[in-house]
């Protein structure tokens, strides 16, 4: 079916919703324009309702035919918790995009993908596109524990090799993604490019792991973002000593040139307010439950 990409009919309806873990949910959202224009590395900005925060989320999948896009959201603060409480048939009030600069898909040879936590979801479309472009794809997937590990099967379907690591050893090998990477290098694996998406601290260490091997490495940066259109500069990051806006210049940047320490400080800017907001939300919802 051919959709009118300029129509507002049915926009942002949740066509499908699946809980992947107690805190991670997959949403398939109706937006023909985004579905038609999406490329690997693009992101969208979601708002659950008027008054809601603008939450940037990387696209996991899209289907121009169906006019839908897929995102995977981890409930961390109030806004994401609220989003994951949505059911099929509910509507987001806003889904803006696609935004950002897509990743250049080309033939590298062997591509290593390193995803941590919900970052695995964001790694998926990139790994898939590289596989389709004829690359050998190896993925290292890291999670705190088995129940937080997502998309293992889907990643296996599009990768030549998948290595799972968990902090507690409840799935795959016990340890960090960088341990698995070291073993790959030690086994003589020739890696032509690496892509990493996950917690800032993990991406920082992934960059350090590939640096001695001079493997071109790219990290998807996740600073505090507001408008996502290059207007506010709140998402500025330092790459190669120069300020860049993650929203329009990124979010994918050369990991070896990225100032991760600055990013760590800047992502903590609103921690107190975020906690306060989530606490209030949790309290309100407990109270409501208490009424029954």
């Amino acid at each position, binding site marked *: 079916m051919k959709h009118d990409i300029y129509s507002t009919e049915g926009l942002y309806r949740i066509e499908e919703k699946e809980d992947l873990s107690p805190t991670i949910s997959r949403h398939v959202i109706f937006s023909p324009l985004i579905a038609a*224009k999406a490329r690997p590395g693009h992101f969208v900005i979601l708002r659950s309702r008027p008054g*809601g*925060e603008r939450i940037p989320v990387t696209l996991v999948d899209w289907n121009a035919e169906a006019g839908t896009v897929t995102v995977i959201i981890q409930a961390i603060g109030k806004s994401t918790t609220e989003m994951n409480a949505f059911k099929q048939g509910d509507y987001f009030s806003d889904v803006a995009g696609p935004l950002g600069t897509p990743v250049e898909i080309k033939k590298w040879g062997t591509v290593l993908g390193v995803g941590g936590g919900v970052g695995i979801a964001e790694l998926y479309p990139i790994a898939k596109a590289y596989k389709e472009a004829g690359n050998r794809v190896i993925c290292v997937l890291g999670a705190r524990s088995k129940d937080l590990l997502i998309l293992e099967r889907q990643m296996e379907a599009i990768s030549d090799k998948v290595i799972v690591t968990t902090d507690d050893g409840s799935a795959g090998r016990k340890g960090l993604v960088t341990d698995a990477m070291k073993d790959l290098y030690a086994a003589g694996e020739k890696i032509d490019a690496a892509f990493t998406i996950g917690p800032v601290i993990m991406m920082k260490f992934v960059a350090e792991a590939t640096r001695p091997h001079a493997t071109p490495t790219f990290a998807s940066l996740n600073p505090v973002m507001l*408008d996502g*259109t*290059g207007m*506010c500069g709140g998402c500025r990051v*330092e790459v190669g000593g120069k*300020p860049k806006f993650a929203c329009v210049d990124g979010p994918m940047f050369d990991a070896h040139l990225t100032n991760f320490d600055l990013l760590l400080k800047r992502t903590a800017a609103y921690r107190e307010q975020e906690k306060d*907001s989530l606490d209030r939300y949790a309290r309100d919802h407990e109270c409501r439950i208490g009424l029954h």
Partner: protein
Amino acid sequence: MEKPKKPTPAIKQNHGRHQDPAGRRSNFEEVALGFGLEEAVTEASRCLNCKDKPCELACPVNVKIPEFVDLVYKEDLGAAASKIFETSLFPAICGRVCPQETYCEAACVLKDKFGPVSIGRLERFTADYARKNGLVKPPACAPDTGKKVACVGSGPTSLAVAAELRKLGHAVTVFEALHEFGGVLSYGIPTFRLPREVVRFEVDMLRRMGVRLLKNVMVGKSITIEELKKDFDVVYIGSGAGLPSPMNAPGEDLVGVYSSNEFLTRVNLMEAYKFPVVDTPCYVGRRVVVVGGGNTAMDSARCAMRLKPEVVTLLYRRTRAEMPARGEEVENAMEEGIKFEFLTAPVELEGDEKGRLKRVKCVRMELGAPDATGRRRPVPQKGSEFYIESDSLVVAIGQSPNPVIQQTTAGLSTNKWGGIITEEATGKTSLDGIYAGGDVVRGGATVLLAMKDGKAAAKAIHEKLSGKVN
């Protein structure tokens, strides 16, 4: 009521009532309270109805000022509003944010002897009265021409283009990147200068005229100009001056340092002043510093004050006389208790171990020889360094055109500031069928000039679409 005879120019000019400074500095309600009917009629009675209409000629969008003022005097507010609508569809916005003192009111013949007629206040009163009493009807639109126009951005310049071209029967689609329409009218100008219900009403009027408004689409990223050109006969770019200028001072990446765009967007678009009722926070701490001397700096300082810190200090490197902000806004800011440090510039921002702003190292300036703009260049005074303790700082030293569309549109000519180059009278760019206007051409200018560009481009676009020229 017993109304004065018209004209009675010697009646004292009425500037309108304002919220008391002590009260308003802690709320986001409109500062200017405007006129009641009696005040409006009295002010209207001062107009001499000059034959050569200097006010109307000075107006960027040529509002039929003497005629609408006369209709206010006659208490026919519906007709007065219709008269304004003939040339400007957005009087409730213009009546509030246009610097009338440099246009119509500067041209008023009463200016020197008695003070000008308060034209801006009368425009605002007329528009508000008409809106509140249901007297505003969308203008009639010509039969559909079958021609399609895309407007990029929903700020003042695009709104003007959309209104004019829709009236002429063209199908218009407006693309907005954010979740609210209005561009700078929504994310930039604070509610205490321009209530959002006013913007929403005027945007809604376009909708009632049949303009299609699409939010959440960022042209240049979500869809390119080239792609739009396949589906539309003409594309008008009004994407604004959304790129903040950094100070390039050490420490600008510290937490607590905002561009004015980020700060104003958090407060105005996201309504962070209602946090935690709304979900987007804005941290200012106890002591706020704002850097800059334009309207954006005044808006930032006044928004910051309303978030209830202990002190808001504004640093400007020249003196009050050189400030580019409207005099009225500077006075408002001073009345609200903002501390002005003239001839002062920040040189370095210092933070704590967590990377949060702690204090601002400043230097005193003196005015030296005039620079290229004719203003005396500020020069640092040796040994005058001092510190201001500060939890947050807003950089409001200017914006340049948002570069995204220019970067993603091959063949679109731009100047060295990144502005799109256009033919001034028509808004034509280097690409056929692509027009541009407002701040993406001018850099940070005014709402009124943006609307003026929109009107001029609409005329040229209509001529093109009707096959008259090009």
